[in-house]
């Protein structure tokens, strides 16, 4: 019998914010409410892309964000049955794993419905129990709304959901101009293209509201939208305040804490509970600063993370970086997404600011703007290097990464590494590649320090 040496797990050097547990409970409650929405007589909308939930909230609907559901399944290691169902239906493993998982849920939902009515048949790969479990948890939609900016696959995904459900359910699509920057005055939050695109999307949101009134049979509650957006604006301000506090050395909280805050800011109802949660996040960070408590034990390196999240590996990655003394502080997915510019929101007339945030999806910029944002954040957080999550099935996020790495090296003199993984498919994660490349980059930083060189992106 072969015996292998038991590898001792390294000590956990993370010090995650305790308040995020409360956020986890808010999110769990939201999903439980959604799973019960049909019983409560609510209409259910499936949507993708930008956070339309304030509009759905004001329209009295229950909402399911497809990417969020796929991410939740992956984070809970429950994505398998949906992905198998998708594969069985014919989806290629190289397809966006968010869409593949979510479309697999659609297949399961339909199969579950037919099984319950006694008309279903077992299809082989996915067991009936899986079908029943997932189908009963995710209520089927009454209609679809697509709000995808940046990635072309996002719009096509809902177009296919519509077909998987037999072309029987209404669908509304919001089109977003890609912020390419043709015009000389084009820039982040500025220029003719930005203003024109903002107006175009705002107009579509008005059309959407009229469409929802038809679907629901109720007049839209504009006051409720303003109220919801006032809470979201305040929560977003608190979030930004907390993010700014993390520029301190050592950082009181890390990128991974902020990843845990994505779900609340992305799709929870706009209400006092949301504000209270982000006030709690900001306050805990401030308390840590006051008490000198760091986000990881023994911060030696400060890193930027570019890439959409690898939801299967959230806890694992946070421990891995901390193990090396690497505080991951900032990232495109955190700093340049999710109501990140709350000053744009006019709560009395919120549609334009909402439209602008949908356009500000971090995959909806040409690389020139992303270059500006990335270098800005690297400087502000004085990072020593960048970690690029080369997200296997997310071409939208991965596209400009090579250009960003070149620019960071040339402009700021900071190194970067790439590792391969995926948003919702653990099979693409390559542990040895990340480990060896991360160690090599950190050693490079050490060597520069030994030479007396400054390694941070902020010039002394």
């Amino acid at each position: 019998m072969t015996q292998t040496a038991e590898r001792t797990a390294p000590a956990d050097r993370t010090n995650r914010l305790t308040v995020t547990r409360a956020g986890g409970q808010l999110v769990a409650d939201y999903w439980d409410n959604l799973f019960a929405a049909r019983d409560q007589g609510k209409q259910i909308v499936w949507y993708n892309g930008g956070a339309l939930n304030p509009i759905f909230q004001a329209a009295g609907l229950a909402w399911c964000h497809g990417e969020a559901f796929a991410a939740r399944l992956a984070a809970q290691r429950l994505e398998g049955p949906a992905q198998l169902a998708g594969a069985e239906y014919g989806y290629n493993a190289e397809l966006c794993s968010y869409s593949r998982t979510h479309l697999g849920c659609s297949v399961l939902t339909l199969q579950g419905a037919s099984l319950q009515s006694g008309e279903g048949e077992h299809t082989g790969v996915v067991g009936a129990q899986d079908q029943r479990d997932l189908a009963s948890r995710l209520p089927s939609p009454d209609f679809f709304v697509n709000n995808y900016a940046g990635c072309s696959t996002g719009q096509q995904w809902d177009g296919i959901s519509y077909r998987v459900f037999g072309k029987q359910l209404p669908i509304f699509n919001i089109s977003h101009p890609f912020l390419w920057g043709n015009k000389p005055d084009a820039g982040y939050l500025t220029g003719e293209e930005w203003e024109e695109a903002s107006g175009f999307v705002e107009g579509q949101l008005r059309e959407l509201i009229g469409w929802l009134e038809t679907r629901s049979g109720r007049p839209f509650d504009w006051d409720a939208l303003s109220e919801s957006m006032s809470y979201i604006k305040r929560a977003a301000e608190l979030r930004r305040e907390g993010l700014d506090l993390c520029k301190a050395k050592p950082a009181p909280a890390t990128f991974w804490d902020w990843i845990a805050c994505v779900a609340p800011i992305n799709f929870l109802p706009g209400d006092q509970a949301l504000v209270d949660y982000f006030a709690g996040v900001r306050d805990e960070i401030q308390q840590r600063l006051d008490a000198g408590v760091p986000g990881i034990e023994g911060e030696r390196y400060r890193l930027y993370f570019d890439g959409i999240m690898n939801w299967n590996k959230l806890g694992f990655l946070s421990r891995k970086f901390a193990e090396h003394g690497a505080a991951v502080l900032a990232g495109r997915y955190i700093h340049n997404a999710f109501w990140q510019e709350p000053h744009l929101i006019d709560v009395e007339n919120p549609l334009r600011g909402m439209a602008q945030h949908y356009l500000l999806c971090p995959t909806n910029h040409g690389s020139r703007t992303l270059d500006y944002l990335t270098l800005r954040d690297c400087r502000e957080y004085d990072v020593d290097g960048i970690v690029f999550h080369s997200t296997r099935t997310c071409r939208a996020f991965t596209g400009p990464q090579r250009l960003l790495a070149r620019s960071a090296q040339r402009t700021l003199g900071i190194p970067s590494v790439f590792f391969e993984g995926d948003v919702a498919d653990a099979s693409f994660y390559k542990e040895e590649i990340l480990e060896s490349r991360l160690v090599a980059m950190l050693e490079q930083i050490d060597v520069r320090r030994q030479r007396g060189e400054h390694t941070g992106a902020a010039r002394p």
Partner: protein
Amino acid sequence: MAIPLETLTAVARDPRGYIADWRARHPGRLVLGVLPMNFPRELALAAGTLPVVVQDDQKPVTEGRSLLAEFYCGYTRNLADQAATGRFDLYDAVLMADHCIQLIGAADVIRAILPDTPVFFGMLNSSMNDSWGPARVTAMMGEFRTELERLTGEPITSQALRDAIAAHNRDRRMVRQLFDDRAARSGVLSPVQLQDVVTSAMIMDPVEHADLLAETLAAATAAPAATTGPPTTGPSGRRVRVHLSGHLCHAPRRELLEVIEASGAVVVDDDLYHGRRHVSTDVEEDGDPLEAVARWYQQRNVNIPCPTRVQQDADWDSWLLGAVRRSGAEAVIHLLPKFCEPHMLYYPELRKALDEAGIPQLQIETEHEGIPLESFRTRIEALVERAHRSRAVPA
């Protein structure tokens, strides 16, 4: 027939040679690199430029590997490589109309690598049922016109645009006739020859292309046996008639087309970008020409639906079934470029529809870095056998 057809073939396989010749004949005029799939070349032709659809030049990706991830499709990685290795020196500017995130990634690389080359992205609305879509598309066509006028320093007159539309329509009609003839079993060109005809149409001035094509067809009529594709009757009647589907923005490898026909199949129709899809739709020659170009874009997705567009009342699967019935195809071969997400998303719908109709099908995933031809041959032969057995079963 040989000489004009050989000229078209030469252009298809060596765009650089044609462009150099065109530049010599048109000193001072611009050559524009146009990215697939829906850029209105009529506008660029009316501006006095030569708009060339940039081809996958099938060279190995070298420096481009450090610019785009390996899980981008082969065509976009090839574009990045062309830019990184100086092969984009052919073009004075680059224009793009299609919202494909991988294509945008490649365009971003081109813009970063070649900062002195203008790269203009005018995004055509891809949600085709939007009530505001047609107005948006017309407005974007106007922006293309403005950009072209800026590039050339000359206005584009309505008459010049009408002339360009007429020239492209004439060329499209002639190419389309070749596809109709093939579907009607009277075609004279092999799949590779047809692909070369379409590719050369994407590169050449349409007047020059149409003139050469007219000579080709005249010669073919006089001597139909000279360079014909495989017959489908007589001893070769056992060949299985197949429809090729997919490859939405670049050409499949020629050797793959050859293997398909060497494996007992005969191609009778397709919906490839380098096939019927490219010439599916003419631009109306009456009325406002800019609005006509905008309607052309809308109509293309009705005539042959494309999964890169979202349109609830245009179904690629239904269209494919109709095309199969019209041509009498006995099987469908899906040519799916690896990592092409719109095709991956739509493929199950195609598979379902064909299965329900009892039409044998085969999916072949193509790659830029070499294709396992012998493996494909085995699978195609199996498809052919399956189709033969279907023949034996009474309807």
